[in-house]
């Protein structure tokens, strides 16, 4: 997904690190990675360590990090939009207007990354960056811990107990779509976008599924 941007900017001191949040294991990500033929790093995060460290809650989210290793944009939606919520569920298609809006938003995000690399634009001052950080609560910390245990139990012959830990993790941190999906859907790809998913998305009401980045 980021290959064209990377190819364009790699000689300007730019790097992309794509991280697959895959508690089901590396083999689930492999075909996608092989097909992408990307030159940047494609890493596999079977324990969702990045979500723990950076307090992430959905995919795709991106973090911008400068040459000194400082966070200049905290986690935010990386190029995706809520247009999908209006799609026709029978045909799985969006109106031409929504398709265009979706593409335009993605393009705007790509442009922002390009501007940042070329001119430093969009890098936030420290106070602004800090103000946008999602706060880790004790409930979220417990959710991560139960998730960690759940992944281990699933991988070591205790699937039912692992599922229970995963479900408790999702209950403790209901804003995390990532925890919900890992708890709901282990073997069946596609189930994560089934009726339960749509019901949960609809329950958001006016709240966004992908909060737009404030560029």
């Amino acid at each position: 997904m980021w290959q064209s941007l990377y190819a364009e900017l790699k000689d300007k001191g730019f790097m992309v690190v794509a991280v697959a949040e895959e508690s089901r294991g590396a083999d689930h990500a492999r075909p996608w990675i092989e097909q992408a033929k990307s030159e940047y790093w494609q890493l596999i995060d079977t324990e969702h360590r990045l979500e723990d460290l950076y307090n992430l809650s959905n995919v795709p989210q991106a973090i911008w990090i400068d040459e000194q290793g400082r966070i200049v944009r905290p986690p935010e939606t990386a190029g995706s939009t809520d247009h999908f919520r209006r799609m026709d569920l029978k045909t799985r298609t969006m109106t031409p207007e929504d398709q265009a809006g979706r593409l335009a938003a993605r393009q705007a995000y790509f442009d922002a990354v390009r501007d940042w690399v070329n001119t430093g634009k969009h890098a936030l001052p420290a106070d602004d960056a800090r103000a946008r950080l999602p706060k880790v609560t004790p409930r979220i910390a417990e959710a991560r811990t139960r998730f960690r245990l759940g992944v281990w139990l699933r991988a070591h012959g205790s699937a039912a107990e692992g599922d229970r830990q995963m479900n408790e993790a999702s209950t403790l941190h209901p804003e995390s779509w990532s925890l919900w999906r890992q708890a709901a859907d282990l073997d069946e790809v596609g189930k994560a976008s089934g009726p339960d998913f749509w019901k949960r998305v609809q329950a958001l009401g006016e709240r966004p599924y992908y909060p737009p980045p404030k560029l």
Partner: protein
Amino acid sequence: MTKILTPTDQFEVSTRDGLWMSAADALRVTGFALKPEGMCRDEICVPMSAGSVKGAEVDVEAFWKKLGGPVIASDVGDVWALGAPAEERNAALEGLQAPDFTLPDIDGTPRSLSELRGRKVFVATWASW
């Protein structure tokens, strides 16, 4: 042996009555050393109550909870997960220094964010689900 999962590592440790273990194992698992002042790492010492230290043994469950971190055990108590305290995560992020991580690529080669110092780095998550 008891399996202990920390946010970035895992250990096999000899324990009794929950997470009582030798001070040497407690240091290995938590990074904190037992001293007269409490459990200490660098400049920080967490005072320990009399009931959570016996000779050269430490109740790591009590210690970790005092640190503010979650402690979750499997049903039969053979696997324990020690989670990062919320405040530790918040403090790290508010410092704005990007937390380092090491993850394998598809061939298993470990890659660390810190190797990329000197470049602008765009870290993006995705998933096949």
